[in-house]
């Protein structure tokens, strides 16, 4: 019997556990397996001709596809103002049929509550989106990539992950705090922004409340937020917080003046303080194609727009006007001592105000939901409003990552010696438009 030839010893399969018993090293080894970028172009080679890069072409294609897809979706959905009104009518009849003894105001109150919850979710989702967008835009302006992993596609779930982290964070507070004020300050900063969104016309027949003095209402409510910020600075028992809060009070109160005065011509032209009426005043087209937006009224429109834009950036405490939370001077300004969800509320407030300011710019100067040409009216008004608003939100982010911070005395000079006088002059400039 022939002896079986000894089989060649099979090559043992690579066992990472045996090769590398230490878990830390295994982790490191698994994380450091990457593709080697050989022959990668240097920025000096790539930047003059970015289109030769395949990933660049792919990214541009994806962005274009997203834009076209969003437009197609909007056209498919159509106007949502009228269906929502029909839904309201249906709800009222249903409620009257089911509960005939319920007074009309209670039926309406439930509907208003539903609207408030919808507006609240606009603010929350806006916060989630804007934080991610800001991080991506700031990264790309600085030639970085920004969040890239969470959610699979360009880190789109990064903010959700950060929000969950904030939720489970320890709520550390200073021992010397003014306990009651410390707790109420974030709410006092956040609640007014929710109120501010009530009269904003998100599209045709799409405002939560049609208030006759909408502009006054919005500015009055946003003024209350200053109180929350000052209280946060005071109650934290921290010198940086206090300085930030006081600076914020000085800045916000100063910039509210040119902000309000810059839109006096728009109010005069529309003949109303209602945001809906202002949007209606901008309907129609000159010579059939040029939109009658207030921005296009020569001289007056542009000066108003510039002053309102600058004052809005200052009102939202953003760079170049972010002295209340100047990182290099005051650790984080008024929210230095806040952590967890209290900090998240301040953050949410800031981004909600950015969205609100952009929405107001779109409403006052760019016709709200009006299409730029009659041809494009097939795209519903809420989509136009949203795209205009997001464009100005983008401008806010763009300014933030371009400009250095103002010094505090120059900041005050700028509003009192430049913006405010010019907003008065602008009112004089608008006289011919009103009487012609």
């Amino acid at each position, binding site marked *: 019997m022939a002896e079986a030839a000894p089989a060649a010893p099979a090559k043992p399969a690579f066992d990472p556990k045996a090769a590398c018993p230490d878990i830390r090293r295994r982790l490191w080894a698994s994380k450091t397996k990457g593709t080697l970028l050989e022959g990668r172009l240097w920025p000096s080679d790539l930047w003059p001709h970015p289109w030769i890069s395949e990933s660049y072409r792919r990214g541009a294609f994806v962005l274009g596809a997203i834009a076209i897809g969003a437009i197609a979706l909007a056209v498919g959905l159509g106007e949502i103002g009228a269906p929502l009104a029909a839904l309201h009518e249906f709800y009222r009849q249903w409620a009257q049929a089911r509960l005939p003894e319920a007074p009309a105001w209670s039926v309406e109150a439930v509907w208003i509550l539903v609207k408030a919850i919808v507006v609240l979710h606009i603010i929350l989702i806006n916060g989630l989106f804007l934080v991610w967008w800001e991080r991506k835009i700031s990264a790309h302006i600085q*030639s970085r990539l920004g969040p890239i992993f969470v959610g699979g596609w360009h880190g789109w779930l990064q903010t959700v992950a950060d929000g969950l982290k904030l939720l489970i964070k320890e709520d550390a507070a200073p021992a010397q705090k003014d306990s009651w004020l410390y707790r109420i300050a974030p709410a006092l900063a956040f609640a007014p922004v929710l109120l501010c969104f009530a009269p904003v016309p998100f599209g045709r027949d799409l405002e939560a409340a049609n208030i006759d003095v909408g502009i006054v209402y919005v500015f009055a409510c946003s003024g209350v937020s200053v109180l929350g910020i000052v209280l946060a600075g005071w109650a934290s028992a921290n010198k940086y917080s206090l300085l930030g809060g006081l600076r914020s009070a000085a800045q916000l109160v100063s910039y509210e003046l040119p902000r309000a005065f810059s839109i006096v011509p728009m109010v005069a032209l529309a003949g109303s303080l209602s945001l809906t009426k202002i949007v209606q005043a901008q309907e129609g087209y000159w010579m059939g194609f040029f939109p009658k937006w207030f921005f296009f009224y020569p001289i007056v429109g542009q000066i108003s727009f510039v002053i309102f834009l600058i004052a809005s950036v200052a009102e939202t405490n953003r760079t170049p006007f972010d002295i209340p939370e100047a990182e290099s001077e005051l650790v984080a300004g008024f929210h230095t001592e806040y952590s967890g969800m209290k900090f998240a509320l301040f953050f949410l407030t800031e981004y909600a105000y950015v969205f609100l300011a952009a929405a107001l710019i779109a409403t006052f100067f760019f016709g709200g939901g009006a299409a730029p040409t009659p041809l494009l009216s097939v795209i519903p008004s809420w989509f136009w409003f949203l795209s205009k608003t997001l464009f100005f939100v983008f401008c806010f982010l763009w300014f933030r990552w371009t400009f250095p911070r103002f010094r505090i005395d120059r900041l005050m000079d700028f509003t009192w010696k430049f913006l405010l006088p010019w907003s008065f002059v602008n009112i004089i400039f608008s006289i011919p438009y009103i009487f012609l």
Partner: protein
Amino acid sequence: MNGYFRSIYDGFAGTFKGLRVTLRHLVLPSITVNYPLAKLKPYERFRGMLLFDPATCIGCNLCIKACPSDCIDLENMKTPEGKKIAKTQWYSIDFGKCNFCKLCEEVCPTKPKSVWHSLDYEHVFFSRHEMVRAWKQGDPWVGTYWDPKEKVYVIPEFQIPIEEVPSRR
């Protein structure tokens, strides 16, 4: 009055110049590499982790003399009569001391070099023992380190080579 309007114009013009630059860089491709997923290969003369080939080393001690931080050590192999021969018994480099100056590679008289810089830049050490690499005859180029717990010399699996086959000068 003219100066006033001029200053306003200059302010806005400067503002728009800055905005133009940032917008341009926003739409240009990023230069960042997704590091653990994608890695850059350094240029050819990069001085990474030192590799050593015990098969070609002649044990001439020139690298020890050249080393400014005194991190190399070696012992020659001996004949049964106790005579040194041109082979190393062991060779060690302490990467805790090494300053990656390339002087050892420059003085190495063998062809190809017996000690040379690879392109590996991922030096990670979890303990001081791992910093000291030792080579005996037959050991791979990356060397081994002494594991005091297991009392054995271990090949550092965690050092990921940037090239599949490390280049040799």
